[in-house]
């Protein structure tokens, strides 16, 4: 493949002229990793198409010549989803950065995949609308990337994930064929192929257009900042809130180490001696929010909250959030490096998982800070390490893998938001049997039989599509000979 590099580059330059093909070392280096920076690889060449026709032609060329290709949006993936292949093309979709249409009557926006998540909200906010899924990276992450990862965010318990807010995509298959799934209407007309594409981590096709639904922003939002002297008490409050029939707009938890790191960084006024801090946001009509705020306060106090502050203004609400929003960079100040893990657990298992993490922290000799989407059970343990210390990255990764296995053990899953990418690929067997994985790979085979699109992501082992094939009936014997037959 590398011997053909010059030939491939020349062919791509025919399709995307001028600066749209990058082949210099210096130019390639900008694409060598995404936000999962521990792993880097220079692609063979980078292509930045302008038009759907170019995307189609690039994929068709790669398909005909068996060249691998890795699509990339803003490169904010935390699981290595856009990690290039040394013998592959890196396809950046960031020139697709226009909002094509806003339709307020039908409450949709049509956007190109390189438009940032926040830009969609910005485009509709003057009329009081917004796009609900709000990953923390929303200022930078692309809507196409959100589709690839089925991104969530603080508000997704109440408003859904990307898959619940996308109505349609235009997608180019590995063969170069351009397909439309969905549109401005609700419900698929046949199989839910759109449901398969969202969250497929750039492996089923390259998205060239996204139609999302927009919502009218809630009339008001108020937040509570609640301190507890144990994670058990905080966790019990979370359970009680849900049991009371309250679905907060957002509900986040931070542990003591995360609280103090954030406080050092932004001085949001967080109580430093709290073992756990809950930030609960309630949104909706004012009369409803005021009612909910009182009910949540009562629940928290009943569970022994040591402190409970209620925002009296929007400015105050934002200061409550300031520490949480700065949590990751805050942790970055107290450690040369950190690994941000991402797993989901049933909410009630949090104390058990935190205890498990404390034990693992001792075993591995590495500190961990916790930020937790309490509303939906999605955990972000931040494992602190120093890459300059030999072996520490390996230990941090082993620690992270053990945390994710623990998540699965207590009835959760390996990843709630960041995707599998390369990071969690080898942990997939902790959650899925070979047969389970085979059915996911079969879906891949439907869309990309040659496995040229973003290979090496998600699945621990590549199976050629033909291998997954025939049924076996060994020597004429059938299982369960005693059950009733046709």
């Amino acid at each position, binding site marked *: 493949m590398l011997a053909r590099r010059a030939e491939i580059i020349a062919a791509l330059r025919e399709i995307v002229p001028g600066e749209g093909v990058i082949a210099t070392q210096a130019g390639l280096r900008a694409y060598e990793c995404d936000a999962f920076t521990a792993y880097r690889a220079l692609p063979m060449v980078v292509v930045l198409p302008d038009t759907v026709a170019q995307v189609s032609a690039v994929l068709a060329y790669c398909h005909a010549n068996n060249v691998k290709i890795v699509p990339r949006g803003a490169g904010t993936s935390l699981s290595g989803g856009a990690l290039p292949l040394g013998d592959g093309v890196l396809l950046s979709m960031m020139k697709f950065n226009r909002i094509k249409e806003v339709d307020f009557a039908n409450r949709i926006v049509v956007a190109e995949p390189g438009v940032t998540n926040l830009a969609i909200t910005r485009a509709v906010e003057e009329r009081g609308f917004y796009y609900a899924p709000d990953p923390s990276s929303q200022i930078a992450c692309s809507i196409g990337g959100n589709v690839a990862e089925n991104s969530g965010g603080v508000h997704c318990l109440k408003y859904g994930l990307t898959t619940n807010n996308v109505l349609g995509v235009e997608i180019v298959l590995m063969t170069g064929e351009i397909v439309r799934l969905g549109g401005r209407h609700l419900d698929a007309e046949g199989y839910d192929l759109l449901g398969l594409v969202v969250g497929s981590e750039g492996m089923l096709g390259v998205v060239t257009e996204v139609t999302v639904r927009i919502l*009218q922003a809630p009339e008001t939002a108020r937040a509570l900042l609640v301190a507890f002297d144990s994670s058990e008490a905080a966790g019990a409050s979370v359970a009680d809130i849900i049991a009371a029939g309250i679905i907060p707009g957002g509900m986040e938890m931070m542990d003591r180490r995360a609280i103090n790191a954030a406080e050092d960084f932004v001085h949001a006024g967080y109580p430093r001696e709290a073992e756990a801090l809950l930030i609960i946001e309630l949104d909706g009509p004012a009369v409803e929010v005021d009612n909910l705020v009182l009910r949540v306060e009562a629940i928290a106090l009943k569970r022994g909250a040591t402190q409970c502050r209620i925002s009296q203004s929007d400015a105050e609400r934002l200061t409550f959030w300031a520490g949480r929003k700065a949590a990751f960079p805050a942790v970055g100040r107290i450690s040369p490096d950190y690994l941000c893990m991402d797993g989901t657990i049933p909410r009630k298992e949090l104390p058990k998982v935190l205890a498990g993490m404390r034990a693992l922290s001792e075993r591995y000799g590495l500190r961990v800070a916790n930020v937790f989407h309490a509303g939906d059970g999605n955990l972000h343990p931040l494992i602190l390490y120093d890459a300059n210390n030999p072996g520490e990255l390996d230990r941090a990764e082993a620690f992270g893998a053990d945390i994710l296995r623990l998540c699965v053990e207590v009835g959760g899953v390996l990843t709630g938001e960041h995707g599998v990418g390369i990071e969690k690929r080898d942990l997939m067997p902790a959650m899925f049997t070979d047969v389970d994985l085979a059915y996911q790979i079969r879906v891949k085979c439907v869309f990309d039989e040659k496995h040229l699109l973003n290979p090496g992501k998600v699945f621990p082992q590549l199976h050629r599509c033909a291998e997954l094939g025939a049924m076996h009936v060994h020597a004429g014997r059938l299982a369960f000979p005693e059950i009733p037959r046709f």
Partner: protein
Amino acid sequence: MNTVCPRDAAELAACVAEAGAQRMPLGVTGLATKTGLGRPVKAAAHLDLSAFNGVTFYEPQELVLSALAATRIETIERLLAEYDQELAFEPMSFAAIYGTGAGTLGGCLMANLSGPRRIKAGAARDHILGVKAVSGRGEIFKAGGRVVKNVTGYDLSRGLAGSFGTLAIVTEVTFKVLPRAPSTVTLVLQDLAPQRAISALCSAMGAPADVSGAAHLPLFAARALGFDHAITALRLEGIPPSVTERFDRLAARLVDFGRAERFETPDSAVLWRAIRDVIPLATEAQRIIWKISVAPTNGPKVVEAVQREIFAECLFDWSGGLVWLAIEPCADAAEKVIRRAVAQNGGGHATLLRAPADVRARVPVFQPQPPVLAELARRLKHEFDPYGILEPGRMAAEV
């Protein structure tokens, strides 16, 4: 025809494996409420899943419920009501349309059911968290999990939604459940023509009123429920003070559309159930029913285009994005007229929901796909059911 009642997933898998080996096409039912939906299937044998019955996991504070696939919706809803929870996607019942009933939880996923609240809360496919299933190869597999935030691998649970048993037979399903609103009020406007009505509905959806149902019943449909005028209805759910305030604000916002009337429980609930189950159009049992999905503002245009050519009564839901049509019996179900009206007015899709079996055998029941999409569907079918034994032809001739 042979009927087999497997007792568990392992038996089911063995049955399917054998059927595959013999290339024996299978019909699959839970409570058989939706056998009238889809193209007629020539099955050689029938798999009755009624043994797959029972709630297996329910934790109200985790907002999760799992049940074996043939558990009755009514059973689930009764259990959830005890904890003031519900299936927020409001699955419709086919009692009016087919004379059957609400069906099973697995059937909800297989038909991707929903009701008026779809515009706010989504459909079954938006609430599915995980499945256990048996493929057409007779292999047992699982997908998803028990948590909402889950992006581990491809979303096969959602990929099975709306597949009518043609890809795999689900044996157990896990759904997200949500709190049930303590009170409901419906704002009703009268005597609006469809275009105007849909404008009112879309205006309401664009307000911070948190509308959870937006429907319009033209005169015929409204009369069927005892009203004298066309009815445009907006549902508001929540705590009483919130609902009252939102009602007042919405009434003020919509003042140009007429005087707002207020329906409380139980009238409000009866109205929305009737809309959910298409009762106003379904009761004339001989009429053919189409279900059309479009962008909301195109709903009235599609109906106008159809009514220029044939007689049709209609009902709008999802703020205009769901159009139910009832037409007089005819051999081709007016398929060309209806699908052309959709295609020429912004696109979307039309499903022939109720018609005699011979009509459904002749006329494409589900929206015909462009060749590339049809090919993807065929390949997906082939991967999950290589011998084509699961409900062959239910959705299209090749799947």
